[in-house]
């Protein structure tokens, strides 16, 4: 099962020296593909486990958000993720053709409220922003382009 996944991921993945890019379709089951791809990146670049988990969380939250809220139709859509290693920084780009969504403009949730009032709206995006060192949003050709910078510790 695991071997099969790796084979699929090799087929879908283009690797040059310092870039890994892959595509996901808009289905939550693709979260498994995401983690397999990140494990492959971790192996290639010898990334610490903590970094991989943080990267996974960032991309998971953004991807889940797109799948749940990004599309008004029932069609399959492709989400493209590229990881670019530039020295001690990892440049991560995620491109989707969903509706306009600028994560950098989302208000942070208020964390310290009584339990009864606690609402998790916006928490996923908040977590993604907490773990990214920098986030840049652009809208081009009806696509959301999110670029994140993660500093390798």
């Amino acid at each position: 099962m695991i071997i099969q996944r790796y084979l699929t991921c090799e087929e879908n993945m283009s690797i040059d020296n310092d870039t890994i890019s892959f595509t996901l379709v808009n289905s939550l089951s693709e979260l498994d593909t995401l983690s397999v791809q990140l494990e492959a990146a971790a192996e290639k670049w010898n990334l610490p486990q903590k970094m991989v988990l943080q990267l996974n969380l960032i991309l998971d939250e953004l991807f889940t958000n797109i799948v749940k809220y990004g599309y008004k139709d029932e069609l399959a859509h492709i989400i493209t993720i590229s990881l670019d290693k530039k020295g001690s920084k990892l440049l991560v780009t995620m491109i989707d053709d969903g509706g306009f969504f600028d994560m950098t403009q989302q208000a942070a949730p208020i964390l310290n409220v009584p339990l009864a009032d606690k609402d998790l709206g916006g928490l996923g995006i908040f977590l993604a922003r907490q773990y990214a060192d920098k986030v840049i949003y652009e809208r081009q050709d009806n696509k959301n382009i999110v670029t994140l910078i993660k500093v390798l510790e």
Partner: protein
Amino acid sequence: MHIDQKEEQGIVILAPEGRLDSNTSHLLDQAIENVGSGDDGFHVLVDFSAVEYISSAGLRVVLKALKQRQAGPKYFAASSMQDHVREVFEISGFDAYIPIHENTTLAITSLT
């Protein structure tokens, strides 16, 4: 995702294994729902020791359980988190609502 389940001293201990994300969290939600929360029900302790990853989808399940059981008589508690998982709880401000016990033994002591 496999969720191990056992009962000790009136506490149902649920131990999910693997990743708690938007793909799998509903399974933990269901397992918690299946444990009665009334007078003849059980406290629920989630043992996170085999959870290697949690996203906001997993936190959502924890919040739901906390809210449902907040007023008692049967409580919700958590224990044995790996560092990364604990950090996600802390960044989200969840450690204010839920005591995160070091291990299941200490959790059981505090619930009984």
